[in-house]
């Protein structure tokens, strides 16, 4: 991974996200990716995410939302992370998402990157991992938790 960007950095986090709805939350996270040079076209990317979201909502039990897409508008596999006190409805049956992960993979992502995304996805199932992220008070902390657990 030496010359490649990490999956998540402090620049891709929002602590205490305030969003009207899931589209708003997703856009705010995508803007972080755009500002960090990970997207070529934010509208195109958001359209791909929306198309995926329409197939089936990505809210999951345990208070998480994982809007995601493989998209030609993504240059670097990336995960932007937000914590939200009030929560954002991502369609889960057990309530709003307090942790939101916007997952972006380039169309032609290589296996190594996809394995890292897969490792992150597996971590999301664990309540202790989610709890650690929810309790994080800074973006730096969020990024370091994810990097430690997933890219170690």
């Amino acid at each position, binding site marked *: 991974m030496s010359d490649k960007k990490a999956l998540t950095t402090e620049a891709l986090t929002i602590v205490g996200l305030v969003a009207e709805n899931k589209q708003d939350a997703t856009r705010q996270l995508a803007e972080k990716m755009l500002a960090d040079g990970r997207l070529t076209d934010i509208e195109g990317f958001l359209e791909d995410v929306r198309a995926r979201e329409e197939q*089936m909502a*990505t809210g*999951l039990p345990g208070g998480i939302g994982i809007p995601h897409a*493989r998209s030609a508008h993504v240059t670097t596999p990336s995960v932007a992370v937000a914590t939200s006190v009030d929560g954002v409805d991502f369609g889960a049956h057990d309530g709003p998402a307090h942790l939101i992960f916007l997952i972006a993979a380039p169309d032609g992502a290589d296996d190594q990157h996809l394995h890292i*995304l897969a490792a992150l996805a597996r971590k999301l*199932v664990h309540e202790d991992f989610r709890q650690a992220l929810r309790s994080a008070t800074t973006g730096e902390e969020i990024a370091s938790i994810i990097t430690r657990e997933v890219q170690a």
Partner: protein
Amino acid sequence: MKIVAVTSCITGIAHTYMAAEALEQAAKKAGHEITVETQGSAGSTPMSQATIDAADVAIFACDLEVKQKSRFNGKPFVAVGVSKALADADGIVASAVKGAQDGTAQLVGDGEAAKPAAEPKAPKAPKAEGDKKDGFFKKLFG
């Protein structure tokens, strides 16, 4: 009990792996052995036929068709959408185990016509395993 499972989702980068992890956790917690094949984007390493043959029951938590499903022919199974496996992995493991134990689980390949597509081997002769039509419609609408 020995369980084999396959997970897949539309995009193949998130739910596939989350469901695999959830099923592994649930099975271990309930004292079962489990092997999960993730049919996602990060490559899919097929489990060995020996692993499948040794299993008592199969769980398909898939939003896509199971690849090379005929490998599991004759195996009692439970099929759910991938989200269901995330929402209630414990319940799915329990129902798979129960279905295999009391013989109520449907069997893979039971009632399905041999599909030539994606299968390297010649079409199998249909096996005489109960009422085909019933099995087929159960799978569609059950």
